[in-house]
């Protein structure tokens, strides 16, 4: 039991068991269905406890990586795929985080989804979601990773389309699945390219060992890295494939929390962190990753400025924060990959807390407002929902990066990484621009977060009529998770990094990261607190907060005419959806129309050919009139003709 591999397998098995139980309840429609949340909560809670034990074990010992014995999954020629899991600091952190956050989301959902149709179905898919994510984190084989990666995709499809009777939800689910799939194509291609380059290995560790021992061709490696990055772009909602994530808000709110905080979107970041040894060898791929992250961060932050849907603001903020993580990961070639990955993973870690918190708070608001989520229709809720108000404030402050809160520390680490990266290497200028971009984004983040906060909780109390008797604070099943996560959002950052450096020390020992550092020929960066950078960041965040306060403290939106066009642009999401519609969807529609026309032509031809026998049949049908004499006469005449022919032909 004390073996880390056993622990990890147990953590992996618990959600699967919960899924089976909940699915059984859902299929049999048994009256015990209203307890469908119990297996998930118990499974996740046990998993979280075990995950923390595992984390302590990984942090404490001298050994830092355990790899299970490979169990062959399938093999064909050179392609050998085995079921193999690896526990190292990176996966241990993810595992503990995923199970911990999922536990509280599960508890929240048991209150939020109470009395919904398909209660057991919901929890079955949630369990499967957590299982897939845990498997993704643990797997030490690229193809196994893909299997779990797709499992996560399927679960997100099922959960986003949970209200499948609603056309918009069904469309959003389809969009989520198809857009991420677009990235997955690249991901698979990348894996096969790596398989070819890396001595026919599909095992992650074996592949990295091979690659560091026999450095591959630079161009091929860059191509493979960029293809892997394609998958991450789709899954982690980066520009240009981020469009599915805001639409995924059609699912129930706890699902959004799960997707945005613990599972799904973090998968892309994790993948890149995992593959750091490859990326470290390819500076070109790194600058591309950083650039895409930067573009996404500022683009999504800009779109979030003027959204009226509370959940959409949060969704775009997730996209933007994921951009930050990719910015950090992208510095990995220019500076020590350990530092880069630590910054990204630390932001992922703190972000999970405050984003789950923000989504659950938004869910609590939505629950009491009777499903209304448009910020123009409610306001001034701070008296009505005191707990939700405080927890949302904690989350917002952490997201905005106000000093001492968890978001502040992780964002600071990323800015630090960018600063270091913009000193003395090939892409100095590029990283400097990205640093500026991220600083602007800090300002915008603070602004839109607090805009949402003020619009929801300040000003005169306004409640939409849909709320009815629901307009009160949510039950304790929902507020307790909020409080726990709020504590996390406030303190988790300060607890693990800025003073004791626990988080970075843990990752320093990750074997893959050490490999990456050796491959990138960079120097280790000492952890020290950069006062200037932190002050600039704080000033920008406070500036954004102050601006939001000035504009929205009344709890309603009145825009000066000068900035109205900018906000209109933001409100319409920079017309990206329309652009995609015109550039990709329309031509595809035309192509589909042409194909269908051609298909119609082929059908017409087939029908024409089939019409010939039918016509002949129609012509000679009257012959079969049921009269025996007529048949006999026909036979006799036919025989006569035949005989005449034979006799005279042969006689001649």
């Amino acid at each position, binding site marked *: 039991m004390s073996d880390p591999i056993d622990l990890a397998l147990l953590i992996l098995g618990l959600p699967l068991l919960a899924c089976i139980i909940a699915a059984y309840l859902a299929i049999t429609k048994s009256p015990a269905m209203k307890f469908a949340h119990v297996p998930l909560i118990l499974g996740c809670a046990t998993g979280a406890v075990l995950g923390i034990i595992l984390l302590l074990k990984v942090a404490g010992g001298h050994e830092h990586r355990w790899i299970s014995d490979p169990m062959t999954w399938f093999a064909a020629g050179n392609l050998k795929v085995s079921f193999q899991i690896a526990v190292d600091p990176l996966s241990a952190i993810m595992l503990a985080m995923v199970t911990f956050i999922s536990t509280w989301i599960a508890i929240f959902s048991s209150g939020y989804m109470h009395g919904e149709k398909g209660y057991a179905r919901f929890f079955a898919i949630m369990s499967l979601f957590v299982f897939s994510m845990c498997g993704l984190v643990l797997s030490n084989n690229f193809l196994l990773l893909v299997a779990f990666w797709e499992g996560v995709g399927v679960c997100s499809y099922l959960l986003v389309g949970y209200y499948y009777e609603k056309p918009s939800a069904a469309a959003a689910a389809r969009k989520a699945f198809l857009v991420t799939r677009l990235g997955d194509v690249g991901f698979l291609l990348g894996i096969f390219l790596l398989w070819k380059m890396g001595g026919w290995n599909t095992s992650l560790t074996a592949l990295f060992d091979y690659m560091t021992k026999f450095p591959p061709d630079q161009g091929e490696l860059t191509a493979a890295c960029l293809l892997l990055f394609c998958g991450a772009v789709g899954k982690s909602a980066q520009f240009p494939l981020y469009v599915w994530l805001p639409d995924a808000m059609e699912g129930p709110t706890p699902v959004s929390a799960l997707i945005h905080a613990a599972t799904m979107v973090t998968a892309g970041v994790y993948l890149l962190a995992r593959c750091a040894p490859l990326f470290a060898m390819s500076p070109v791929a790194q600058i591309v990753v950083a650039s895409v992250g930067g573009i996404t961060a500022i683009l999504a932050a800009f779109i979030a400025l003027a959204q009226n849907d509370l959940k959409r603001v949060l969704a775009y903020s997730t996209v933007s924060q994921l951009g930050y993580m990719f910015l950090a990961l992208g510095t990995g070639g220019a500076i020590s990959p350990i530092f880069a990955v630590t910054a990204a993973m630390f932001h992922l870690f703190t972000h999970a807390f405050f984003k789950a918190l923000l989504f659950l708070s938004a869910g609590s608001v939505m629950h009491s407002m009777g499903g209304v989520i448009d910020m123009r229709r409610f306001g001034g809720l701070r008296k009505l929902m005191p707990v939700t108000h405080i927890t949302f404030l904690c989350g917002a402050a952490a997201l905005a990066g106000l000093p001492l809160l968890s978001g502040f520390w992780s964002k600071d680490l990323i800015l630090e990484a960018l600063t270091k990266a913009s000193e003395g290497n090939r892409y100095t200028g590029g990283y400097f621009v990205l640093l500026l971009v991220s600083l602007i984004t800090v300002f915008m983040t603070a602004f839109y977060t607090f805009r949402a906060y003020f619009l929801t909780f300040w000003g005169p109390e306004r409640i939409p009529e849909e709320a009815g008797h629901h307009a009160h604070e949510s039950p304790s099943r929902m507020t307790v998770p909020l409080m726990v996560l709020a504590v996390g959002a406030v303190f988790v950052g300060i607890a693990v990094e800025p003073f004791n450096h626990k988080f970075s020390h843990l990752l320093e020992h990750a074997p893959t990261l050490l490999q990456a550092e050796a491959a990138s020929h960079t120097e280790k960066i000492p952890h020290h607190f950069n006062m200037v950078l932190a002050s600039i960041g704080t000033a920008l965040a406070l500036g954004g907060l102050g601006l939001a306060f000035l504009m929205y403290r009344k709890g309603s939106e009145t825009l000066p005419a000068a900035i109205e066009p900018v906000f209109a642009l933001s409100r319409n999401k920079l017309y990206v959806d329309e652009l995609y519609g015109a550039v990709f969807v329309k031509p595809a529609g035309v192509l589909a129309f042409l194909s269908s026309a051609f298909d119609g032509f082929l059908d017409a031809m087939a029908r024409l050919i089939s019409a010939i026998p039918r016509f002949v049949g129609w012509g000679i049908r009257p012959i*079969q*009139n*049921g009269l025996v*004499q007529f048949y006999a*006469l026909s036979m*006799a005449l036919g025989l006569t003709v035949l005989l005449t022919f034979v006799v005279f032909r042969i006689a001649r």
Partner: protein
Amino acid sequence: MITLWHYLAVAAALFGIGLVGFLTRRNMIIMFLCAEMMFQGVAINFVAFARYHGNLQGQVFVLFIIAVAACEAGVALALFLMMYRRGKSLDATDWQSLREMGVPPTVDTVPLPVEPVTEDEHLAPAGVRPKHVPTEEEAARV
């Protein structure tokens, strides 16, 4: 001297009469007899050629024909009996229902004279008609 040609002439006449009879008559029993005549015409052919060639093949064939014809007679007459019971008629044109869908039934331009149905007066004791009037279902099943 009776040559092969004489036999062939008789066989051809027999076959021709049978064919014409088969094509022109509508009574099923007559048609059946005509078919038998055609058989016999063919059989005579076989026998004549067997004799002419001096071997037994044709004769064996004729034995087969007679055996098959006997079987066929049994089946055909049983069939006619059942058909007579259902339709009270031996007219072959009454059984047109196997024609193609949508093809109109062939009817006589000049209707056949209706023969009055007379009650059977000289039935054997076993064939006495039941006294009760048959129900609709019974009538349909007969």
